[in-house]
C-alpha cells in the first residue's frame, strides 16, 4: 500500500517522501533501497521513465544521484504485464503457441521454438530433420532481427542516429521473409508441435540466399560507423563493467554474460533442433563492459550467416511435420478415405491432445540469452503451469550493479547494452 505524502517530522532536512518517488512503495521499503543521504535531500532522487525513449519500452528507473554520479538505481517493472503465463494455462497446448509470440516480440520465432520444444519433450515427439533445419534458419534470421533492433536503438541512445535508419532498413528484408513463410511480419506462430505449419514457399530459399549475399556489406557499413569510432569507444569502453563471477551469480545469460568472458551458449552446451550439425563459434568478450557486449552481438551476425548458409546447403527434403497423428493433424486428403484420420482431426480440433503427467524444462538461446520454458502437466489437454524463463528479466536484474557509480549520461548506454525487451521482462 502506498502511504501518500509521508514526511519525517524529526529533522527539518528530511524532505523526501515516498510519494515523491512515484513508485508504489512505502517509506520503510524505500529506506532500504536508497542511502540515508537521499532521505535528507542531499542526494537527488530522479525518476526516469516509463515514458522515456531510451528505456526500450516501459521501464521505470528511480535514480539516486550525487551530482552527476549514480549512487543507486532502482528499476520498476510490470507496466507491460499481460498475464501470458496465466493465459497459456487456459489454452490447449497448440493454442498457446500464439501467446508465446508476444513474449519477446522482437524474436517471436525463438520463443515459438522454445515452447514447442518443451511440449515435444513432454510428449516425446520427434521432429523431422527438414523441419529442424528450417527452424534453425528462421531462428538465426530472428536472432539477426533482434540484434538489428538492438543495434539501432542502442546506437540511437548513445547518439549515433544514422545506425537506427540503416538497421531498420535491413530489418525489412528479414520481416519480408517471415511474412513469406507465415503470412505475418512479426507475430508469426509458424512452428507447431512436431514440426511446422506448412512447408516453405517457393522463393524462400532465394530470399534467404539474398540475405546472405547482401548482409556482409551492410555489416561492414555498421563496423565502419561504430567499431573504431572514437566517440563510440569513449561512451562504451570501460562503462558498465561486470565481472565473470557477478554476471554468473546474477543469472545473466546470452551476449551479456559472454561479454564478461563466460563461454555459455545453449546452442553449444545443450544443442537443440540439430544445432550440433553446424559449425559456428561463440564470440566471447573479456572486459564485461558495454563495448564488449556490443562486440559479442555484432560478431553473432557473422555466425548466424554462417549457420544459415550451412543449413541451406544441407537442407534435406521430406516431411515438415511429424506423422504422429496424436499431436499433428492428418493431411486433408486423408480425411476423405480414412476413418482414423477423421477421428484424429476431430479430436485435435475439438479437444486438443493430452500430455503425460510430468514436468519438463526446455531452453533455447534467444538473442537476449537463455530462453527457457517450464511446463507442468497434470495429464490433461491444458498445462497445469507454464513458466517462461525470460533472459531479459535476469539480465535487467543486474542493472543496479552495472550502473553503480556511473555517470547519469551512461545509464542509457548500459540499459541498451543489456538488451532488454519489456514484453519479455513483464510477460
Amino acid at each position, binding site marked *: *500500500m*502506498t502511504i501518500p505524502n509521508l514526511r519525517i517530522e524529526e529533522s527539518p532536512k528530511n524532505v523526501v517522501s515516498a510519494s515523491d518517488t512515484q513508485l*508504489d*512503495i512505502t517509506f520503510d*521499503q524505500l529506506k*532500504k*533501497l536508497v542511502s540515508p543521504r537521499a532521505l535528507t535531500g542531499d542526494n537527488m532522487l530522479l525518476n526516469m521513465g516509463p515514458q522515456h525513449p531510451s528505456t526500450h519500452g516501459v521501464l521505470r528507473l528511480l535514480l539516486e544521484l550525487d551530482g552527476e554520479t549514480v549512487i543507486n538505481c532502482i528499476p520498476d*517493472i*510490470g507496466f507491460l*504485464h499481460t*498475464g501470458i*503465463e*496465466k*493465459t497459456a*494455462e*487456459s489454452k490447449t497446448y497448440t493454442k498457446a503457441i500464439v501467446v508465446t509470440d508476444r513474449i519477446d516480440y522482437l524474436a517471436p520465432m525463438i520463443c515459438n521454438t522454445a515452447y514447442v520444444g518443451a511440449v515435444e*519433450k*513432454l510428449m*516425446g515427439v520427434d521432429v523431422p530433420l527438414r523441419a529442424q533445419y528450417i527452424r534453425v534458419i528462421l531462428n538465426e534470421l530472428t536472432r539477426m532481427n533482434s540484434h538489428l533492433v538492438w543495434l539501432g536503438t542502442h546506437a540511437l541512445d548513445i547518439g549515433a542516429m544514422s545506425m537506427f535508419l540503416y538497421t531498420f532498413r535491413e530489418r525489412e528484408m528479414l520481416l519480408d521473409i517471415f511474412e513469406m513463410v507465415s503470412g505475418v511480419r512479426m507475430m508469426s506462430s509458424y512452428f507447431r508441435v512436431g514440426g511446422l505449419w506448412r512447408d516453405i514457399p517457393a522463393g524462400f530459399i532465394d530470399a534467404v540466399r539474398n540475405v546472405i549475399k547482401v548482409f556482409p556489406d551492410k555489416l561492414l557499413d555498421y563496423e565502419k560507423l561504430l567499431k573504431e569510432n572514437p566517440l563510440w569507444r569513449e561512451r562504451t569502453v570501460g562503462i558498465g563493467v561486470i565481472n565473470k563471477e557477478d554476471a*554468473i*551469480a*546474477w*543469472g545473466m*545469460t546470452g551476449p551479456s554474460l559472454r561479454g564478461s568472458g*563466460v563461454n*555459455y551458449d545453449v546452442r553449444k*552446451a*545443450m544443442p537443440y533442433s540439430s544445432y550440433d550439425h553446424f559449425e559456428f563459434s561463440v564470440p566471447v568478450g573479456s572486459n564485461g563492459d558495454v563495448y564488449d557486449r556490443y562486440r559479442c552481438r555484432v560478431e553473432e551476425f557473422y555466425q548466424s550467416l554462417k549457420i544459415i548458409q550451412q543449413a541451406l546447403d544441407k537442407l534435406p527434403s521430406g516431411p515438415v511435420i511429424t506423422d504422429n497423428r496424436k499431436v499433428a493433424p492428418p493431411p486433408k486428403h486423408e480425411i476423405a478415405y480414412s476413418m482414423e484420420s477423421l477421428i484424429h482431426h476431430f479430436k485435435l480440433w475439438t479437444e486438443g491432445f493430452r500430455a*503425460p503427467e*510430468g*514436468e*519438463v*524444462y526446455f*531452453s533455447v538461446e534467444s538473442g537476449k540469452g*537463455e530462453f*527457457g520454458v*517450464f511446463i*507442468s502437466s497434470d495429464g490433461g489437454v491444458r498445462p*497445469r*503451469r507454464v*513458466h517462461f*524463463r525470460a533472459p531479459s*528479466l*535476469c539480465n535487467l*536484474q543486474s542493472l543496479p550493479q552495472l550502473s553503480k557509480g556511473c555517470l547519469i549520461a551512461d545509464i542509457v548506454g548500459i540499459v541498451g547494452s543489456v538488451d532488454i525487451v519489456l514484453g519479455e521482462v*513483464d*510477460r
Partner: protein
Amino acid sequence: MEQTAEGFAATMTPNLGAAVLAALGDCLSDVRVFRDEVTLITTRERIVEVLTYLRDAQEFNMLIDETCVDYLPKEPRFGIIYQLYSISRNIRVRVKVMLSESNRSIATATGVYCAANWLEREMYDLFGINFEGHPDLRRIMMPAGWEGHPLLKESAVKVEEVAFSFNRERVEANKPRAQE
C-alpha cells in the same frame, strides 16, 4: 516413465549422482527422473543447505530459474522449483520443495544466489508465497494496491463480454477502469 535413485545415478555422471545422494541423503525426501531431467525433492527446512551444497561442492553456479506451481487440489499445494545449471560440468538439476496450503512460507535463496531476488518477488506477487529474509519483498508485476494473487488456481481467467449495439451500455458501465 518415472524412476528413482538408480535412474538418477545413471543419468547424471555416476560419481556425481552417488556423491549428491551420499551428501544430501537425509535432506532429500525423493528423487525423480522424467525425460532425463533430475528433480531432487527436499523440505523447506533444508532448502538453503541443499542449495549451498550444490553451489559450493558440485559447482552448480547458476540459478537459471525459480518458479512456483500451484497443484490445487493436491496437498501439499505449492511446489517451489529451483532450476540449477553448472557451467563447468554442463548439467542441469532441478530442486523442488513442496509447501502446504496453510503455511506458504519458505526461506529465501537470495543468500545463495542473488539471481533469486526478482524471481522470488515475482512468486510473492503472483502466488502469495512469503520468502523469509528476502531483502526487498514487494510486488513486482502487479500494482501495489492489487488484491489477490493472479496465478493461483482460484483466480480464474475472465473473458470480457463483447459489446454489441444491444448491450453496449451495460458492458461499458461494468468495464474495469484504471483508478487514480
